[in-house]
C-alpha cells in the first residue's frame, strides 16, 4: 500500500504534535509535570535524562498509550493521541516478537496486520538485512539480530511519528547507522522522529530535551 518508505510521501500528517503543561503519573508517583514541547513535521528530537527520569513515559504519552494526568496533548488538528494511536509507531524494549515464530512469520504478521503489502513478507523493505534469517525461529537469534528484526518494522510503517526508545541498543555500528539513515529519510518525507538515547551523539539539526532536571 505504501511501498518503499524511502521513496513515497507520507499521507498528510497533522503536525505539530503539542504538549502543553503536560503531567504524567506512573502508579501513584508523578514522573513529570509542566512539560511543554512542540513536535513539527521533519523534526528529530533526542530525549535525554538519567535512568528513571521519564523518557519512556514521555514516549508512551506521545504514542497515546498513557493518559496525561494534567495539561494538554494534542495533534495539530485537535485530536488527542489516545484517539489516534495509529499516527505513531512505538518501538521499545518489549519488541512484540514471538520467539516461537520465525523471523519471516513475525514480520509477515505485522506487515499483514498494518495492511502493508499483498505478500506476507515485506522482502522489498529490508534495511537491516534480516531477510537472510527469514526461516530462523526468533529464539535462535542474537540480541542484536533480534533488535534488527524489531526495527525492520520501521520500513513498513505508514505512521507519521516514530517513537524510538533507545533504538540503537544492542546494534553494531552498521546497524546504528542504518537507524539514523532511516530516520533521516523519514524526516525528508515530512515525518517526525522522537528518540531516547544514553549515547553521546552528534546528529546535525537534532533538537534535544533533557528530562528530570529536578533530580
Amino acid at each position, binding site marked *: 500500500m505504501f511501498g518503499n518508505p524511502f521513496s513515497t510521501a507520507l499521507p498528510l500528517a497533522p503536525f505539530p504534535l503539542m504538549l502543553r503543561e503536560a503531567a504524567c503519573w506512573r502508579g501513584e508517583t508523578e514522573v513529570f509535570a509542566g512539560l511543554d514541547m512542540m513536535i513539527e513535521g521533519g523534526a528529530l528530537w533526542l530525549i535525554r535524562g538519567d535512568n528513571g527520569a521519564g523518557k519512556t513515559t514521555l514516549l508512551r504519552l506521545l504514542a497515546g*498509550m498513557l493518559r496525561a494526568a494534567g495539561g494538554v496533548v494534542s495533534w495539530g488538528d485537535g485530536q488527542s493521541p489516545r484517539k489516534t494511536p*495509529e499516527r505513531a509507531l*512505538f518501538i521499545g524494549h*518489549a519488541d*512484540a516478537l*514471538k520467539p*516461537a515464530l520465525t523471523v519471516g512469520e513475525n514480520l509477515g504478521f*505485522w506487515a499483514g*496486520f498494518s*495492511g502493508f503489502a499483498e505478500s506476507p513478507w515485506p522482502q522489498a523493505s529490508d534495511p537491516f538485512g534480516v531477510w537472510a534469517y527469514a526461516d530462523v525461529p526468533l529464539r535462535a537469534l542474537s540480541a542484536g539480530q533480534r533488535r534488527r528484526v524489531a526495527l525492520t518494522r520501521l520500513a513498513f510503517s505508514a505512521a507519521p511519528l516514530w517513537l524510538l526508545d533507545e533504538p540503537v541498543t544492542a546494534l553494531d555500528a552498521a546497524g546504528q547507522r542504518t537507524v539514523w539513515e532511516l530516520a533521516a529519510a523519514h524526516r525528508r518525507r515530512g515525518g517526525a522522529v522522537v528518540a531516547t538515547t544514553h549515547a553521546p551523539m552528534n546528529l546535525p539539526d537534532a533538537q534535544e530535551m533533557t528530562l528530570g532536571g529536578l533530580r
Partner: protein
Amino acid sequence: MTAFLAVVRRDLLLAYRDGAGTWTVLGFFVIAVAVFPLGLGPEPQLLARVAAGVVWAMALLAALLSLDTLFDADWRDGSLELLLSGELAPEALVLAKALAHWLASGLPLIVVAPLAGVLLHLPGNAAPTLAVSLLLGTPALSLLGALGAALALGARRGAALLAVMVLPLAVPVLIFGAGAVESAMLGLAAGPGLLILGGIALMALAVCPFAAAAALRQAVE
C-alpha cells in the same frame, strides 16, 4: 478484515507451535479422561453414569487452562499495545482472539470428545448430542474466557483470579451442556437444553467482545 485474519492466523500458528496451545489442551483432556477410570474403578455402569459430566467438566477445565495466555503473552511482549493501536477495533480484536482460541482449543476437543465418550462407556446414542452440545457450548466458553482474561490482565495472581471469575459465568454452560447429554442418554429430548446453550452462546457473543474491549483499553494504560 485483513488485520482480523492476520491475528487469527498468527494465534493459530502460535497455538500449534507453542506449549500452551492445542497440544496442551488435547493432552490435558485425554489424560484427564484416562485418569478417571483409574480413580473411580472400572465398572462400566458407573463410568457411563458419570461420562457426560466428566467430559463436560474436563472441557471446561481445559478451556480455562489455555486462557491465561490469551492476552497475557501479547501484553508482556508489547504486542498488545501495537494490536490495539492499529486500524482494528478492540472489539474485533477480542473477537479474533476468541475465535482463534476456539479454533485452537474448542474444536480439537469436539473432535476427540466422541473418543473420550467411548473410553467412558458413554452410550452410543448420546454421542451426537455430546458433540453438538460441545459445538454450541465451547464458543461461549471462549468468549467468557476472553472477558475474564482481559479483566485479569496484568493483575497479581492473574491465573487464579481468572479461574474464580470465569467459573461462575461458565457454570450455566456446563449445566445445560451436561444436562442435554444426560437427557439424550436417558432417551429424553435434548433439544431444549441445546437451544438454551445456543442462546447463551449468542448472548456471550453480544456482550463479551464489548466488555472485554473496555477491559483491554484499561490494561494497556
